[in-house]
């Protein structure tokens, strides 16, 4: 990225009296506002919104966009986030008025196309996961986790085992897993990793018991490694009366190759914005549907779509936990995932996962002599290096990440998972051409050289970005969370 000029705030472009948009003239007879609303309810002064022309708004946000890195701009190997290409046709097809301009409370008979899409997407996700019934309501991965845990809790309660409140989570798990547990009143029991990066099976055996609600597992896990003991893990948890929750953050590694349902998982969430290529949008909207085994379907949030004859209808499951958000979830997001599945087909999805895994192994193999590789075994769709060698030379993982920005790349995920010191988590995805992978490998090798020869170059990086390293502790110590007129 070349250095670009920073942009003033929209408020700083404001000129009193300027307007950007005009409504049609009011065509109904006017009544004084105070005849309709008591004066004490009315505000004295309109909100101080910017006063700018339409062109100024267009330029402002266009200029802002140019300060931003996205998959469209360049390589984005952010581990665990699956920053793959987002096909533009998905934006077009989900902008059709028949999808974008329909209201959630229209009579079902007038939105049969939307219900058909929801029904079929639910079926496809069931096929891909090897489980049975889907709800599309959760708005994000963490929201899916929350929903899945609520379902597990309802299951145990119905069986008179509401005392099962311990959820086992590996030490390598995403932070959302324990945080979601806290949201449903579960106690987190941490299971350590073994020396192959998987769950320590013996430790797990010692942790399960009559209070076990279940186990949350990402597989492949956050180290990018497939846990080869999954059958045994599932058996231990099930024998103890617990359920298995699959965090689908890393599902891009296994589509059409293996299915969580076959591994023994009872509940799965998918991050449709990762695996199924719906755009991440700068942090959202995502979609985090969950799929469950038949006997858990009675607890799903409602409504879900069923097919009765040739009609699609909304149905609320018998013992539904309730709702996790209004309406039916992020419809226009999961409609893109539907498009993605339809354009790939079964073999295409398998090819996606195979290529993602091949890319990751290719890169890992080309980098492991210059960066420490804590778990030297075949990885899945991502791999975790450690910056400990560079740290000894005076440059930390953070500095490597910042130096990568100078070369026009987004940095990998850093300092996660926490089980690896100075972690650098790289996920290339399947949509990058080999030339990009090769160039990135070269740059990573060059940076390793730089760390040896001239660590200062890394410590002071980035050099070529619109702004230099920002003082994060100042931001937290003296929070300035909004603009104020000087």
């Amino acid at each position: 990225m070349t250095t670009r000029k920073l942009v003033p705030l929209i408020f700083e472009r404001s000129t009193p009296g300027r307007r950007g948009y005009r409504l049609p003239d009011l065509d109904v007879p006017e009544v004084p506002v105070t005849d309709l609303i008591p004066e004490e309810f009315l505000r004295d002064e309109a909100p101080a919104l910017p006063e700018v022309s339409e062109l100024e708004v267009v330029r402002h946000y266009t200029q802002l966009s140019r300060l931003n890195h996205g998959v469209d701009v360049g390589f984005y190997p952010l581990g665990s986030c699956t920053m793959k290409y987002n096909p533009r046709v998905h934006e077009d097809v989900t902008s059709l008025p028949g999808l974008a301009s329909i209201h959630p409370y229209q009579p079902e008979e007038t939105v049969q196309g939307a219900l058909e899409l929801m029904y079929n997407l639910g079926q496809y996700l069931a096929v891909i996961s090897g489980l049975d019934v889907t709800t599309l309501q959760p708005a994000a991965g963490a929201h899916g986790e929350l929903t899945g845990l609520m379902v597990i809790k309802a299951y145990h309660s119905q069986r008179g085992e509401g005392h099962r409140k311990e959820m086992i989570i590996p030490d390598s798990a995403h932070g959302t897993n324990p945080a979601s547990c806290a949201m449903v009143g579960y106690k987190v029991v941490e299971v350590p990793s073994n020396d192959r990066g998987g769950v320590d099976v013996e430790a797990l055996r010692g942790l399960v018991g009559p209070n076990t609600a279940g186990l949350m597992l990402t597989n492949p896990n956050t180290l990018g490694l497939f846990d080869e003991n999954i059958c045994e893990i599932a058996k231990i948890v099930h024998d103890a009366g617990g359920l298995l929750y699959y965090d689908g953050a890393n599902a891009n590694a296994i589509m059409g190759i293996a299915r969580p349902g076959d591994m023994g998982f009872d509940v799965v969430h998918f991050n449709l914005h990762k695996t199924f290529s719906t755009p991440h949008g700068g942090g959202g909207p995502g979609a985090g549907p969950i799929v469950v085994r038949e006997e858990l379907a009675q607890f799903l949030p409602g409504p879900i779509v069923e097919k009765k004859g040739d009609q699609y209808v909304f149905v609320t499951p018998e013992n539904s936990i309730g709702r996790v958000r209004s309406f039916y979830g992020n419809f226009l997001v999961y409609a893109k995932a539907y498009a993605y599945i339809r354009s790939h087909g079964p073999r295409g999805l398998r090819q996606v996962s195979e290529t993602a895994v091949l890319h990751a192994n290719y890169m890992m193999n080309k980098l492991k002599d210059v960066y420490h590789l804590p778990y030297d075994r075949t990885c899945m769709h991502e791999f975790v290096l450690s910056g400990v060698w560079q740290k000894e030379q005076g440059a930390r993982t953070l500095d490597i990440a910042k130096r990568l920005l100078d070369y026009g790349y987004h940095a990998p995920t850093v300092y996660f998972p926490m089980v690896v010191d100075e972690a650098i988590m790289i996920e290339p995805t399947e949509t990058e051409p080999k030339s990009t992978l090769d160039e990135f490998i070269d740059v990573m090798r060059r940076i390793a050289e730089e760390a040896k020869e001239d660590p200062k170059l890394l410590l002071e990086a980035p050099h070529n970005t619109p702004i230099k390293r920002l003082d994060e502790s100042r931001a937290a110590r003296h929070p300035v969370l909004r603009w104020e007129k000087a």
Partner: protein
Amino acid sequence: MRYLPLTQEEQQEMLQSLGIDRVEDLFTAIPKEMRLDADLDLPAPLSEAELVRHFSELAEKNNDLKSSVSFLGAGSYDHLVPSMIKHIAGRGEFLTAYTPYQPEITQGVLQSIFEYQTLICELTGMEASNASMYDGASALAEAALMACAATRRELVVLPSSLHPEWQDVVKLYLKSQDVSIAYLPYHEKTGVVDAKAFDGIPWSEAACVVVQQPNFFGLLENVASFKKVAKDNGALLVMAVDPISLSLLKSPGELGADIVVGDGQSLGNAMGFGGPSLGFLATSGTKLIRRMPGRVVGETVDTDGTRGYVLTLQTREQHIRREKATSNICSNQALNALIAAIYLSVMGKEGFKDVGYQCLQKANYMKERLIQVDGLSSPFSAPTFREFVIKGAVDWEEVNMRLAEHGFVGGLPLARFGLPELVLFSVTEARTKEEIDSFVNLLRGLIS
């Protein structure tokens, strides 16, 4: 596959460099009995042209509100959306970025969120806003939990005039953490909560009282009485607001709200069958600000002293605090928040005021015309803004199907929420007098 650039030759090269023959060799960690030996049972792939055709067919099975005239609201609104929004928000640099973990190359998203936070503060009169959440309902649930944490109390007082789906979401979130709920009935004549309803609530245990303004029926609640009871009892006042109404109504900050939430769909976002949208959450005072769930962007400087923006107050969040975080929420609805920010900017101070004013005038016009129709009446006496309830001994579901044949989408029959004979209408600035008049005339014919 058209999105996979890897050629056969490149694949061979990669396999060779790994010293393996086949891609399958990379999957040996997966126990053999778990590896699929057949294709997934999914439909065959579609080309782009076929996909577009397929989606057009699906879309045609829906009656869209571009070709019909709608009076539906109840949480999703048909407002005018300036054309430029989709072009700007659709730029790849916004669309295909993720959470701004590397602020040096994501100032675009960070600054737009900082501006969004400022705009939400302007609307609500609060000191700080987070970077947005999933939707209004879940934002309200999180606000209630935040109030419990801040007051160390475990009772939330909800008005029964709150949107029923929002009630469901709040109930589920609270139940999951063993927080109790007490309900305030609305008065059957006014449709809003009156102070008598406050009797009998164990206020000393209450973490917060919630008020939705305007309420589910579109009626304006007397927020001052909620504030008084909250203040007298050391409980927080949580307001769920309609952002468009804040163009005219007193800001929650002026009314003494402690936490304010709402749904931002109406700020330039598509209805999209209910999602995606965004929930906003704003609050005041250091203590509550540090308890906010979700992402927050703050201003700082770089090593040269240049102003810039970063994610901040992260020690509240799940990736650092894990089970001790203020919430499990990880993402925000950045793109929808961006749309809301662009909408508010291009509408501007005057334009936004016009939107609220026209909603009020047009809704009032239609309400007055409807209650002149024989058999229809206004069941509630409290003032309204953009939505209102009409009562009539009519099969509203049936009437709506008839209206649909004429290109109209009628109001929402409240029978689905246990309120027979009532129907909720919404009238935005997008409706014209002609549409309203035709609708009323047609309806009169259908029910006489």
